[in-house]
């Protein structure tokens, strides 16, 4: 039995393809912090201090192995001048697209990260959590990939039309988005984030075929990740990964977040120690799990992917839905200790 590790040591050992003391748990709760502080989701995200407090409480409560200062994906659209629509029981959504015609791509200016209020709250939050972590708990920052953020910037259908029919404008948008993404990722790293989660659902074979990914999203990822000054984890946000694992492994990323639609054991085997696997508890079903079902799912997932390290237990989307009850999250946390302590039971 290995001595008890800090969350940072546990995570780094797993990423190094070795077995730590137990399977690391990245319980990616975001909005649940608002529940803990008895605030609305809108109030909660209005101040960095709220999210620092929320993340602190959640990490302790569930013994999660990271701080996750992710506010909401549409914060990036706010930086580009877009609106955010708040709801009472889910993540804020991007409002009307900021790119309403492909020609807008030519004139749209890349925002300066340092002057965006919506982003400053996040870097303040990272700074606070990093100070608190004292190097013992990984702080994971988040960016939307340049290849995936256009879904919020212009809507999915116009974006697919652009990708297939207006390649020059597509690449012009990629260049602008890359500049923003790199600046934003590096600002989070400078604020104290230990790693960056590179959300890239459009690169998943669920969204575009692998052959198109290799000419688009993969090229963008390679160029972008190379200029992010810290480690990255690519998350396909519920999208499948298996068909592009070999490609993902060439992008410079260290981790892949996988879908509940795939067998995580097969994904891990395909990674073959080149990437660490993160996943893949079904966040949508989790809402109606009993503690017993949660325990069984954790046990099954660890049995499939835990052996030998290279695995972090998490949900499959990168954000636990607001509707998932506390008893389920507690059951997941307990089950990791029960079934995820190394060496794993055969």
């Amino acid at each position, binding site marked *: 039995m290995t001595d008890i590790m800090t969350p940072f040591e546990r995570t780094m050992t797993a990423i190094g393809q070795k077995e730590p003391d137990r399977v690391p748990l990245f319980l990616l709760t975001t909005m649940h912090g608002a529940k803990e502080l008895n605030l609305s989701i809108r109030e909660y995200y209005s101040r960095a201090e709220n999210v620092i407090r929320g993340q602190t409480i959640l990490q302790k409560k569930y013994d999660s192995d990271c701080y996750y200062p992710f506010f909401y994906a549409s914060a990036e659209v706010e930086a580009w001048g877009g609106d955010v629509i708040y709801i009472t029981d889910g993540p804020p959504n991007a409002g009307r697209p900021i790119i309403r015609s492909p020609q807008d791509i030519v004139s749209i200016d890349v925002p300066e990260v340092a002057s965006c209020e919506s982003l400053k709250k996040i870097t303040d939050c990272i700074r606070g959590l990093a100070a608190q972590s004292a190097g013992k708990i990984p702080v994971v920052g988040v960016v939307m990939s340049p290849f995936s953020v256009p879904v919020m910037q212009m809507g999915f259908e116009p974006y697919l039309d652009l990708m*297939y029919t207006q390649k020059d404008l597509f690449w012009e948008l990629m260049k602008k988005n890359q500049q923003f993404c790199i600046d934003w990722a590096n600002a989070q790293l400078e604020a104290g984030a230990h790693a960056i989660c590179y959300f890239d659902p459009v690169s998943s074979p669920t969204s575009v075929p692998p052959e198109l990914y290799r000419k688009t999203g993969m090229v963008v990822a390679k160029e972008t990740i190379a200029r992010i000054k810290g480690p990255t984890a690519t998350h396909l946000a519920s999208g499948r990964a298996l068909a592009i694992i070999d490609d993902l492994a060439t992008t410079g990323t260290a981790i892949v977040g996988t879908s509940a639609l795939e067998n995580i054991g097969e994904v891990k085997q395909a990674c073959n120690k080149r990437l660490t696997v993160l996943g893949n508890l079904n966040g949508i*079903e989790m809402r109606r799990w009993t503690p017993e079902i949660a325990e069984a799912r954790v046990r099954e997932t660890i049995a499939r992917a835990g052996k030998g390290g290279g695995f972090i237990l998490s949900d499959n989307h990168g954000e636990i839905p607001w509707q998932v009850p506390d008893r389920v999250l507690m059951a997941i946390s307990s089950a990791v200790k029960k079934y995820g302590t190394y060496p794993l039971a055969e």
Partner: protein
Amino acid sequence: MTSPVAPPSANLAEMEEALLSVDRVKAGRIVKETCTPGSPFVCLETLVVPALEEVGRRWEAGDVALSQVYMSGRICEEIVDAMLPPGDPQRIGQPKMAIAVLEDHHTLGKRIVVSVLRAGGYEISDYGHGVMAEDLVKLVAKDNIRILLISTLMLPAALRAKQAIAEIKKAQPQTKVIVGGAPFNFDSTLWHEVGADAMGHTASDTLALVKEMAGGDGQ
């Protein structure tokens, strides 16, 4: 309507390939070579719809991507619109149908379903996106909708469908509701929980459900 005569299977496979490689020209050529002018429904039933069904089946199996499903639907919609323009009296007579994205603004799923239904010869009212549950209930009553399709991407919106469906069923018990979208694909019992009559795993799946619910009305 006369019994459709199936095209050679090679044409169907070629059509599917043209759609998946987003080759509009080739798809159009296959239709021209395979279908008899003046018999658009035979063409729909034997070539366009089966090709879309196969694309849908492969999407469900994880073998093709959403972008290919979307572009396939768009191409087929264009082809069918050319043969059978919107409002053409030859289009399938049917119960009144509508589709909406409940609460959120992710419209890709709706767009795919509209394309596939139109490619299948159906007309459907599009209520747009960001539609609130109470507004949807009013629209369905006003238009006397018999088959309602609700598309969602986010879990909160999917859960909100429950309230809308309950009110629609209370006011118009005969209205059938089909739901679809990511939350329903990730939780196989959710469609039942929200009180829908059915769930469309794919757009072509939804087309089959619509056909069944429409019961061949008016064809």
